[in-house]
């Protein structure tokens, strides 16, 4: 079994909880409160902004064969930010002066700390899981959302053939990287795989509950 298949099987309880999350189901069914979705938009906008330095920090460690694909991910993320701004304008959501929630802040620090201190294969694991989680999550939404929904462009973005191809490419590359690692590194990759899945689940939960910062709410 490939590394990704093996790990996806191992973290299945977290993954299933993520895909069953009420945020995704309510977005799919069109019952999500405007403010709840707006809260996710504000937080995810910050997250996508932070994903750019994360990708950039991977580049010096990347094998030459990975550089073009990683480099291309940066303008793609810039386009995603445009999508957020476009939807924010359409839905009357203010993306300015937003403070990160605790889970969002923690997840971003985790991304960057991994990029700086972990091996390339370990940090690449974090990238793959984050992208795979988004693809799978938005596929749940795609299964029932009204194409006329104001939120539909987000669904299109993360369920597109281009995004599916990117996730498949990451999976193939991660399996290849895992094949070249020793048991110690592979164990750390597995640990980061699970931790990223937990953060992805925590992100939907944060979006649904409107979590702020402990002690300040």
């Amino acid at each position, binding site marked *: 079994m490939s590394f990704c298949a093996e790990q996806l099987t191992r973290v299945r309880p977290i993954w299933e909880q993520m895909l069953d999350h009420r945020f995704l189901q309510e977005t799919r069914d069109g019952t999500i409160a405007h403010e709840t979705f707006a809260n996710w938009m504000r937080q995810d906008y910050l997250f996508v902004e932070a994903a750019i330095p994360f990708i950039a920090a991977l580049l010096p460690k990347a094998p030459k064969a990975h550089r073009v694909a990683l480099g291309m991910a940066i303008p793609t993320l810039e386009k995603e930010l445009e999508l957020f701004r476009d939807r924010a304008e359409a839905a009357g959501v203010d993306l300015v002066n937003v403070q990160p929630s605790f889970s969002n802040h*923690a997840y971003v620090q*985790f991304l*960057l*700390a991994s990029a700086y201190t972990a091996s390339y294969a370990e940090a690449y694991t974090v990238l793959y899981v984050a992208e795979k989680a988004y693809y799978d999550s938005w596929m749940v939404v795609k299964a029932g959302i009204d194409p006329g929904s104001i939120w539909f462009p987000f669904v299109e973005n993360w369920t597109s053939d281009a995004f599916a191809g990117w996730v498949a490419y990451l999976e193939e590359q991660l399996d290849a990287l895992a094949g070249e690692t020793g048991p110690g590194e592979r164990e750390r990759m597995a640990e980061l795989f699970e931790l990223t899945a937990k953060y992805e689940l925590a992100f939907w939960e944060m979006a649904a509950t409107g979590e702020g910062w402990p002690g300040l709410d």
Partner: protein
Amino acid sequence: MAFTEELYAAAKPIWDAQLEHRFVAGIGDGKLDENRFKGYVLQDYRYLKEFARIFAWAVAKSEDLASMSWYAAVLNLTLNTEMELHRKYAARFGLTPGELEAAPMWPTTRAYTDFLVRTAADGDMADLVAALLPCAWGYVYIAQELVKREPPGDQRYADWIEQYASPEFAEAADWLKAEMNRLAEGTTPEKRRRLTELFVLSSRYEWQFWEMCWKGEQWPV
């Protein structure tokens, strides 16, 4: 006004909240439940291991030999003395070195240490010092307040207070404060705002660390 006084003023409500926190107050009066403190000892051990890395980044980023030497000495002291003291102290709560090493990081410990590592990696020296100061200075600040009170009946808590209220820890905090003031000298208002933001954020994490140890913590879902 020294820049560290500005930092203190910005974070004072959080520092006051730390002093009043049930966990801290419980160390002070000795009434803190031992199991809650055991959780703290385990998480603090994991924290300390990551905290040591910040000093390694500081050695790499220091501009002058004197600073490099100081951070290298603290790194050595943390890894080769303080962690051993920590293991001995943990044994007084029945915790073995194996348990300390194997304890999983709770989400707040993970988030706080990732924040420190990330700041140390992509920030400059001023950013790094602003982020680590609330721990180094804050522990001395808390212990020096607690030491003024009636000593706790539990000697283990009394020793905790005595250690962090000691002149050695106070001197280290003073050195870092002086370093912060030196690094902030002549910086732009925007940079000082950024440093204040980092200092306040670490102060919040410090409060949250007590809160985590009081409540116990797991992943939210």
